[in-house]
């Protein structure tokens, strides 16, 4: 299962970057979202996966024993998901605004400020 999930994660990374490299603005956002899925999965899997064993201490015990999912990576991912949402929301509105202001849909045309000549 690990092998399948690893390959899936790689696929998501590739697709995310592919979308971000496009000219379109919407595709940029889709790419960012895809990349954040990939990153979250990466962190999740890299901390080793165990099926169906959440890091919750049973009712009659004080500590977790035996095997269980890594709570540290999950805490990291939770934060990442929420921050990712903030970025996505901001990016969507930003693109809307840029589109309204410039009228262009092509990312490659947004390079006037970097042009020296």
């Amino acid at each position: 299962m690990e092998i399948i999930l690893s390959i899936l994660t790689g696929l998501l990374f590739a697709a995310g970057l592919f979308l971000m490299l496009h000219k379109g603005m919407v595709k940029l956002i889709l790419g960012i979202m895809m990349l954040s899925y990939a990153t979250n999965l990466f962190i999740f899997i890299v901390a080793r996966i165990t099926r169906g064993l959440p890091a919750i201490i049973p009712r009659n015990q004080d500590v977790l024993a035996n095997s269980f999912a890594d709570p540290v990576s999950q805490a990291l991912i939770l934060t990442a998901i929420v921050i990712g949402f903030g970025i996505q929301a901001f990016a969507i509105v930003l693109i809307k605004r840029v589109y309204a202001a410039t009228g262009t849909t092509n990312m490659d045309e947004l390079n006037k400020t970097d042009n020296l000549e």
Partner: protein
Amino acid sequence: MLLIILIGLIAAAVAATIHRIDNNRAGIWLSILPLGIFIWGIAHLNSVLLNNSIIEVYPWVDSICLSLTFMLDGLSLFFVLLVSGVGFFIFIYANSYLHNDPNKGKFLTYLSLFMTAMLGIVMSGNLLILFIFWELTSLSSYLLIGFYSAEEESRKSALMAMLVTVSGGLFMLAGIILLGIEAGTLELDQLLANPTLLLNNAKAPIIAVLIMIGALTKSAQFPFHFWLPNAMAAPAPVSAYLHSTTMVKAGVFLLARLSPVFVNVPIWQSVLVHIGGITMVFGALMALMNTDMKKVLAYTTISALGIMVLLLGIGTTISVQAAMVFLLAHALYKGTLFMVTGNVDHETGMRDLNLLSGLGKRMPYTFYAGALAALSMAGVIPFFGFVAKEILYGAAFDTPLVSGIVGVATFLTGVMFTALAFEFGYKIFMGMQAETPKHPHEAPFGMILGPIVLATFGLIGGIFSEQIAQPLLHQSSSVILNVDKVLQLGLWHGFTLIFALSLLTLLFGYGVFKVRQHIRAFSTKLSLSNLPGPEALYFKSIPALLQVAIKQTMFFQSGILRNYLTTIVLTLVSLIVAISIIGGDFSVIGLSKTIQVKWFEVVFIVLMIVGVVNTLTTTSRLTAIVSLGVVGYGTAAIFLYYGGPDVAMTQFLIETLTIVLFVLVLNRLPKFVDMDKRLSKRIAFPSVIFGATMSTILLWVLSQQMNSPLKDYYSQSSYLLAKGKNVVNVILVDFRGIDTLGEITVLGIAAIGIYALLKVKFSKS
């Protein structure tokens, strides 16, 4: 001493305000500052003369040998008195010179800043502090040269002066840092107390050269001299103050200051003697060939600085003493002559030596000052210039190395100085009155006070050299030599060879003065002054540098996101590949105990793959968003299966929110741009490589042993310490609660940003 620096900075800050309140007398008010510092210096004279240097230490950053240390010994005090004494007259002079200039307040700000920085240099007890003030003088010099900022020449000259001195300063900084590493301290009193610190150190020559580059650029030595004549675009008080009496002597000061440390490094002596000697003769020759009064003075200043560098390089007792004596003499007459030139320029509207004559009747006080200064420059008895010339010749002909050449070169320079002195003190003031753009009349009081006092001091200082100048100059040269050697100044040493040479100098000088037109014609014929030199190199290299900067910026800053991303990704991938090839333990332990594949999970994964493919290929934005949603829900499902119910819940929630938000604004968003096949192929390559690399990394990590003390700690103490059974929740709200607060803050900022983007109206322009 810190107090003086602070007061100086405050004065710089309020100078413009003072100008606004009292337009006519702002410079007079500000001249109280240098006067006060001068008196302060005089008050410490006795204690310093008794060989007690005063040291003030304010510890700062010990780890890089940086402490705010100030030091007042004989050498410092000499310069403090020079800077503040001349500064007093310069402020008064500038007040009249820029009488109606609306920017006078700005000028006085820069001037106060400069004076403070210059005092900082000479009073620094730590080389890093000295460097900071050093750069501050370059900066204020830039502002002052470029004061007439409406003129292109001013701006260009200002930039040139700054680039040359600041790049020299960078070398010097490197030298200082290296010195700090090798010697273990940058405190001057410690360095000077142990002059053998660098003895036999292999890096000593490198340090010496680096520091010398800084000093030689600042003191306009060949081949870095060219910025000084160009700096004459500055107003006259600036030329008189920065570019003859003080700032350009900072280099000489530094060489003198560090002389005890480096005097035993062979390269120190030979570089200084050669560069100083060449500059001395070259500067004097160039001065003779120019007719613009300011240019001439600039070149004689270069030449005079060359003499000082040469003398410090020779390094014998008498030569170091001569350097100090000559430095004072030069400051007195050259400052005067610059102010005299300023007066002539100000009142006649021109400053060509060939055309000016007969101004003496119209400008009697200026004439008086100019004549006195010229007599001192020529070294006529009983002026201080004569005293200086005597000891200078004494040093030059007493040199153990190549005494013949040094002696002859010094004599020739003296002859040329004398010839030019005739021009300044005699030619322009006597004879028929020449036609000038403005009708000449005497300059206002403020502009003749400084020249007269300084020139008169050159006379009195000569007659009473033993009483006035000797004690302090003796003390300062003793500091440089690091031993106490008697300095004996006086007018009369008997009919010696040196005295004969002095007389010969006057005679030859008058001869050169008489034939100067032929010399100039000769040089024009050969167009000597148009020969390619370091200045041409400067003018070629600056545009070339700019071109390189533009080219490389255009290359890296294409403004196209795709290029940036591709660069980042490919760099990352190639670094990873490089590391895995070069070394590092990449042994694979093997995927022991992989989890069994379950068919319903595979269904989800297949669904996700379909979602990915659909997102990539569809032309409809809605389809793309929904397909992406499928991928997002798929990830959530994976989290759920493998023990992350909280993560899965959050992912479901956020996924839904994102899609709703997306669909809401969909109509306002641009349509997909048609992709051409060629671009698709080109961007596929980095994407595939990136994905493959990430997969490989993941698989490699999974094949290694895992050991996480953090995981164990949280699972052990979650309930016992924080009374929570859901470990993930406890981490977020308890163990790492502050992080979560930060996360909320980020969301809040994003929300403010979104609100601003939606609400703020941009003006269409």
